């Protein structure tokens, strides 16, 4: 299993590179490969490249492609953590209330000024998570069963308020709807920078807890009896992933299925060991989101929200997984 894992990881890294390069070529404006290459060359030797092509390649496509890779990684690692800690195969990055918190923040943002949307989305996402955590703390430890219910209840509440606000100012409906369905349009290098830092923090943190997470798969009681401080593990890992997910959502809206499906695909190939999964799942997520976004921004009708594509890709995978479980 181990060597299989290493081979697969290597393959995934290669795939990510290939995907990135291919996506650079795809877009609403057709730019032939020789032109792209020439442009990159001229940029490197600072010889006055064609600004149209450079701007499109370096400022429109590249940041968006890299952002897709990074956000895919964040969603996947968050999904992995929730699935393990809640011992729930349907765990996704938004289980703790992130999505509805962010939606509420966005709805408020669209009412006041669209520029405030990312900040408000992040703030309210963390607020929702914080409330869920507070509700489910008992005896200094977070009880997973209660956290799920807390997350759901908080989600209902925040969603209700958000829906009401959206209903009030239907004029902004388009903007809000697009945001809710998720989209990487308008990706800039500064967003890439922040998300890159987030990934640099999140993945090593989860890797640091790989042994604890493996043991926690057996359940809280056994984990504790083996010496694992389950309270600390849950708090730290869930907090970190909620934070980075909130950040991601504040930039690109709510993109579903990537966080849910990537860990499962990873497990099918390399098993449950978190040492492997913490690397493999993010790579799978990166590729899934990158492919989805490339499709989303290049349809003949123009751009459609990427959340729609991820749903199209994710649902068959989910259904397949459910079928497999039934036969078990």
């Amino acid at each position: 299993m181990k060597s299989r894992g290493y081979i697969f990881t290597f393959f995934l890294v290669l795939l990510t590179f290939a995907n990135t390069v291919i996506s650079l070529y795809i877009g609403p404006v057709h730019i032939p490969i020789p032109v792209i290459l020439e442009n990159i060359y001229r940029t490197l030797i600072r010889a006055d490249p064609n600004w149209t092509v450079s701007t499109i390649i370096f400022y429109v496509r590249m940041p968006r492609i890299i952002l897709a890779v990074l956000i895919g990684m964040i969603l996947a690692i968050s999904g992995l953590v929730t699935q393990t800690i809640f011992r729930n195969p349907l765990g996704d990055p938004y289980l703790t209330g992130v999505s509805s918190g962010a939606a509420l923040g966005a709805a408020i943002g669209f009412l006041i000024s669209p520029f405030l949307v990312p900040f408000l989305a992040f703030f309210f996402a963390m607020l929702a998570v914080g409330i869920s955590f507070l509700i489910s703390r008992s005896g200094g430890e977070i009880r997973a069963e209660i956290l799920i219910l807390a997350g759901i209840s908080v989600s209902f509440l925040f969603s209700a308020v958000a829906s009401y606000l959206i209903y009030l100012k239907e004029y902004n409906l388009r903007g809000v709807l697009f945001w809710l369905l998720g989209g990487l349009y308008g990706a800039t290098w500064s967003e890439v920078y922040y998300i890159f830092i987030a990934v640099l923090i999140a993945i090593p943190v989860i890797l640091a807890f790989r042994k604890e997470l493996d043991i926690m798969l057996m359940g809280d009681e056994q984990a504790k009896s083996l010496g694992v401080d389950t309270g600390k593990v849950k708090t730290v890992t869930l907090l970190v992933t909620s934070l980075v997910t909130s950040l991601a959502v504040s930039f690109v809206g709510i993109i579903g299925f990537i966080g849910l499906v990537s860990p499962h695909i990873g497990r099918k190939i390399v098993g449950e060991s978190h040492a492997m999964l913490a690397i493999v799942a993010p790579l799978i997520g990166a590729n899934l989101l990158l492919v989805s976004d490339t499709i989303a921004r290049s349809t003949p009708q123009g751009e459609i929200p990427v959340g729609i594509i991820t749903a199209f890709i994710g649902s068959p995978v989910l259904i397949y997984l459910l079928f497999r479980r039934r036969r078990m």
Partner: protein
Amino acid sequence: MIEISGLTVRYGGKIAVDHVDLTVQDGEKIILMGPNGSGKTTILKAILGLVPYEGHVKIDGEEIVKLSRREIARRVAYVPQIFYTPYTFSVREFVSMGLYSVVRDWLSADGVVDRAIMRVGLSDLREKSVNTLSGGELQKAVIARALVQNSRYILMDEPTAHLDIGAVKDVLDIVRSMEDRGVILVSHEVHPLNRIDGTLILLNRGRVVYRGNKRDPEMEEKLRDVFGVRVNDANGALQFDLS
């Protein structure tokens, strides 16, 4: 030594364990028996610090409330009833989880893991995935994991339940071979009593109703009282008689 005094555990208003006193010396074997709901498993969980309790639980002189998870795990290991393990971890990876509380240097630990696996007789299945093991094999793997913790005491919850008689014998033999460890073995069957030379503590409705290590008529009578079933002594081996 594990010292329990006045242990009381309540579950939502009901008393599951009622002022129980219990001690386990180094190397001592205690067989904890009683009908369902008598509080046997709850006592184990209290010792492990998994449930809130009233009274005192001390391991080697220290109250467990003052100890961290790791410290507790270093002193007492838990062998739970076999459970659903749909995981692809190998037996070796699974047993290695026991090393979490013990060792920082994972490399030198391999020997410990292999020895424990050999002791429970699973050497051939070292690389097999745990989701492909039979009930008996899984129980042995869990025991090996507990052995690897290198704790002075081991708590076992129904280690022979759901096993075929061959596996039951293997498991009880392993327990017998643990000369240096104190063991509390919870069971509602009578096999452990026959195979292991230890003290029987009988529980009923959260209270200790009998304590003794001689297989004599008094023990048989108490067993019958508690379980409501006749107990026979056939060649020194106790049996529940349903005829």
